[in-house]
């Protein structure tokens, strides 16, 4: 008995395709579709409104603030977590005592669930007797600061948590990439008279290019996606100082039940991510050397 080739192929693809379609592709397309309708209520079913939901967003000051906050958040967390990850990886890649313990320590934040991290940092940030305030009092003589309760510091406080959480994860990728660089390349470079700095900029960093690109794309996506700690700690407050696109979507969709507006917001988020990813691949990708 011979099965037609196409049937065989569909049977092999089927299970994965079914799951992907049911939980990813169909909801994504449905979201974009719903964004073109008004929010249905028990009295009034959804009606087609075209781009009205997007027009309403353009006039929504909180949307603009969330978008701005999110850009600041990305600009603050992405380069910082990448630089920190690279620094930690270079450090624990060297021959130093107890480097396994160091690697574990750096990686631990990655393993913790974001909700647990949020609770941990709630203690750190507690005014007056939290760890951060104790440190600033000891070292700088500052008075108590309400880190997550005041508009000036809240977003920065959230960014610090994201960097703390992500740098260890990215470090693992850098560590793996560093260990894949043949030692003879570094030996050849030093024999040719290159200083340590020159070896880093001219040999190590270019060879880490593909890893950096991968990490950068992931870090950007995460900066729009990983908001659990904000929902737990500030819920976007105070006065939307920590509102990001994702928290605003959550708030609009599941607190105000304005699902059409939330769908439109999701459309914007997807568009932003797509544009950034395309830019990264075309700008960085061209200069990245793949072995």
């Amino acid at each position, binding site marked *: 008995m011979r099965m037609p080739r196409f049937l065989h192929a569909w049977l092999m693809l089927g299970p994965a395709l079914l799951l992907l379609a049911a939980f990813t592709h169909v909801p994504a397309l449905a979201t974009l579709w719903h964004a073109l309708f008004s929010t249905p209520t028990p009295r009034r079913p959804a009606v087609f409104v075209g781009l009205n939901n997007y027009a309403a967003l353009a006039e929504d000051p909180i949307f603009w603030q969330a978008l701005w906050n999110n850009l600041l958040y990305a600009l603050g967390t992405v380069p910082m977590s990448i630089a920190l990850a690279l620094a930690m990886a270079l450090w624990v890649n060297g021959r130093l005592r107890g480097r396994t313990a160091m690697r574990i320590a750096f990686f631990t934040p990655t393993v913790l669930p974001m909700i647990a991290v949020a609770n941990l940092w709630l203690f750190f940030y507690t005014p007056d007797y939290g760890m951060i305030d104790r440190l600033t009092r000891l070292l700088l003589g500052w008075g108590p600061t309400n880190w997550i309760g005041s508009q000036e510091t809240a977003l920065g406080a959230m960014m610090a948590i994201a960097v703390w959480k992500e740098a260890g994860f990215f470090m693992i990728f850098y560590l793996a990439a560093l260990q894949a660089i*043949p030692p*003879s*390349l570094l*030996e*050849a*470079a*030093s*024999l*040719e*008279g*290159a*200083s340590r700095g*020159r070896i880093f900029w*001219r*040999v190590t960093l*270019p*060879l880490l*290019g593909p890893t950096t690109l991968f990490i950068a794309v992931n870090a950007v996506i995460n900066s729009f996606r990983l908001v659990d700690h904000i929902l737990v700690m500030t819920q976007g407050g105070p006065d939307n100082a920590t509102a990001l696109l994702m928290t605003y979507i959550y708030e609009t969709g599941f607190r105000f039940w304005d699902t059409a507006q939330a769908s439109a917001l999701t459309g914007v988020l997807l568009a932003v991510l797509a544009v950034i990813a395309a830019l990264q691949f075309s700008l960085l990708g061209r200069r990245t*050397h793949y*072995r």
Partner: protein
Amino acid sequence: MTAAPASADAIRLDSLRKQFGSTTVLHDIHLRAARGRFVVLLGPSGCGKSTLLRVIAGLERADGGRVVLDGRDVAELPPAARGLSMVFQSYALFPHLDVAENIVFGLRARRVAAAEREARLARAASLLGLEKLLKRRPSQLSGGQQQRVALARAIVAEAPICLMDEPLSNLDAKLRGEMRREIRALQQRLGLTMVYVTHDQAEAMSMADQVVLMRDGHIEQDATPAEIYARPASAFVASFIGTPPMSLLPLVAHAGGAGIAGLPDHLLAPASAAGALLGIRPEEVVPAEDGLPACVTAAEFLGAETVLACALGSGGALLQARIPGHHALPPGSPVRLRLPPLAHLFDANSGKRLPLPPFA
């Protein structure tokens, strides 16, 4: 040859020692190499030859002794300041840089002026026939081309000493032969002092001015290829050099002299040689009616000649014979072989070469 003054030595190693943890990989190495010499460090894997090269390069730190390059003690100098270049076994080309940038990497690092850099690049590229490949990435080159780029990078530095760590081991046999000649010609043309690591004795014999044969972190013999072939200093050297290497036959006392166990009618040495090892070059063994009776155990046909492995006498001593022409005899065939006059004797315990006893 007149003795050169000490300052003419490009490389001098005095009681060099190196340990990794509790294992000593280099014991008390003494070595001198005159300027412009092609020195080959030869030995089986694990003999310490690569480690010795890395110690000279400064990539490993010696645990004792001195490395003197061109009259300077370089113990405290980093690799870059030792006035040497190196070709790695893996070539160590930078995969993200094109051929030209790979070659001038060191010149850029040393801030050589652009005009001179270009001139030296052009010279090195034409010397190695790389002019058309300068814009390629290493991954777009064949193994032989990558090898040339590594060579070009080494010579563009114009360092007086060049180190090579098994540079031909990743090439096929034909290319290896070509590169062997090319490297030798380049070394002579540029007057480089070369230290070349290999485990291939044919490579060593054909290229070297000076062969340093190593074993277990010691130098077994340091001599010219002709000397090391004609007068191996130990049984180990004897059994390493030659294709196939020297056969070593244990001698026992017979009435009136010494010979192979079980063959009392064929005396090979004076009685005082009993207990020693007799070294026989396979190419000096000839089939002859009046020769020693032997039994073929294996035959290897090489084209122009045949290598016969034979068992001799009651002890089954192994003798190899390289005989011109096609003689692929089946195992078990009886042959008669005539041995050359006594030329090599080695102490059975220490392996050291023994002086030939006078015939009584």
